[in-house]
């Protein structure tokens, strides 16, 4: 079955693109925390839980938020939109915070609200909670962005009708180095997209193209 990328979002190098359109830009990024907060404010999102999230979840949350904002997620039933994400450093960004909190036995302060984020797939959990997604989900790890693995995993889900559509992407952050890209992938026969967006075939070449957008 042919599949199409019917929307995508990119966050990286201070730029945010939604379907090829630049919607946010910061020339000089002081910290990730400031960058993502400014983006959250500009987009006028009201979701207090956002402030409790770790950096990986904030990054993934914003990327999915912008992706689905342009696609009306209401058209998908809870079990019918899958989420398959990947990155290189797993939850290392928060792992370092937790490790720092237990470094010294005389100043020992491990916190459950940090520890819970020391799992890479929590970002998927946050996206699922926000959008009510109950279907297939998976978090994969590879040294570099690996379009072939993502394509195989997502294609199998759609080919076997485990979901009607899938959010497929890369969410990487360590310190102030970050990049996120998410694509909405649908079977061609049932795909819809917004006016003016030209859907792309769901291929390794397309995935390589959208991770380099800017």
């Amino acid at each position, binding site marked *: 079955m042919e599949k199409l990328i019917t929307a995508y979002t990119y966050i990286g190098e201070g730029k945010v693109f939604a379907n090829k359109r630049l919607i946010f830009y910061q020339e000089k990024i002081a910290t990730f925390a400031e960058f993502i907060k400014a983006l959250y404010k500009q987009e006028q999102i009201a979701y207090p839980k956002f402030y409790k999230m770790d950096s990986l979840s904030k990054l993934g949350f914003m990327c999915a938020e912008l992706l689905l904002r342009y696609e009306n997620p209401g058209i998908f039933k809870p079990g019918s939109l899958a989420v398959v994400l990947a990155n*290189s450093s*797993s939850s290392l960004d928060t792992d370092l915070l937790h490790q720092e909190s237990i470094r010294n036995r005389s100043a020992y302060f*491990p916190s*459950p609200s940090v520890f819970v984020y020391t799992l890479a*797939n929590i970002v*998927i*959990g946050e996206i699922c909670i926000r*959008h009510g997604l109950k279907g*297939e989900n998976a978090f994969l790890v590879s040294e570099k962005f690996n379009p072939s693995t993502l394509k195989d995993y997502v294609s199998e889900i759609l080919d076997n009708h485990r979901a009607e559509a899938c959010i497929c992407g890369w969410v990487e952050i360590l310190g102030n180095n970050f990049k996120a890209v998410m694509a909405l992938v649908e079977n061609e026969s049932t795909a819809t997209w917004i006016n003016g967006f030209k859907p792309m075939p769901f291929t390794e070449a397309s995935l390589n193209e959208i991770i380099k957008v800017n």
Partner: protein
Amino acid sequence: MKAVYAISENIISALGFTASGNAEALLSGKTGIRIHHDEKLSSNKLAISLVDTQEMERKFELILKQNKKEQQPSFFTRLEKLLILSVSDAIQNLPVRPDNKKVILVLSTTKGNIDLLEDRFTAKFDHKRVYLWALASVVKDFFGFANTPLIISNACISGVMALIAASRLLRSGKYETAVVAGGDIATEFVISGFQSFQALSPEPCKPFDLSRKGLSLGEGCGTIVLSTNPGDGKTEHILVMGGSVSNDANHISGPSRTGEELSMAINKSLEDSGIEYTAVDFINAHGTATPFNDEMEAKAVSLSKMDKVPLNSFKGYWGHTLGASGLMESAAIIQSMKLNRVFSSAGLEVSGFPGMINVVSETIFKPVNTCLKTASGFGGCNAALVFQKT
């Protein structure tokens, strides 16, 4: 649906270094969970299941010699040693070599070499080894796998998800053999985190028991080799059937209140396998022994109408081994099917869920042909997978 066979399996835990050795311990009702006091892990006493380090080192030196490796044992981290031992045992009679293009290594872990963040290791190991792909590379290079490993890190369902992902890859025809390995070790990192959640039981955990007080952590590895080729000369085969993954979309660290989403994964895995729930001989649940997890699972199993199906948890034998648990427990399910025994659910005295689930208090002797494995984890994820014997 193209058939996927489980052709060999290994379990490394406090109870032994092979799948059959672990199964013997399970049959005799032994538990690997003991009260330990190890300052490197915690300043408190812990009920935890730890692999015998001396035995591990002895076996690892042998493996280095057998494989004519020039590296010293000290080149490898604890988890790398355990994973290499586990894979090595599982692939010893493999009809194809790891460097065959049709073979893939699938690795499941939650925290990998996370102990390397501790000060005592930073000078000894390259900091890169803390990345999960670097851990996978060490295992890949040791055996000479040709393909880049697929790495799954999806909290406590990682192991079951790795089996689901591998069987899907084999069915798609891209590979013919998948060596699916999972491992996680006991670290101060993980122990301190679960302590901060107040999730640890002061005594060995008691899954599904009325007086359960929380989980016991453990460490270990499990490997299952999947193949589209059943191998020659066997009279019975274990098939990996359908699997499904779902999300609660409710809370990142608390399970669903209704169990509906795990039930959905269970129903889809049965549907995917073309099997009626009435055909399931036993369910091996996640059963962490935390009050809310076990309750959610009982609700889910009950919703899927399997309240009378014998159900057990293996957490009472070797604790919760995180990313390894799905593989170790599935390997024990395969042993169950080979031996036609349903192992008792260690730690059970009085069921906390009469009428909702049928927890196995004594080992059952009966033909075991169809089994359901479930797992649930932080991030609201659930997985279910069906095994069948032919």
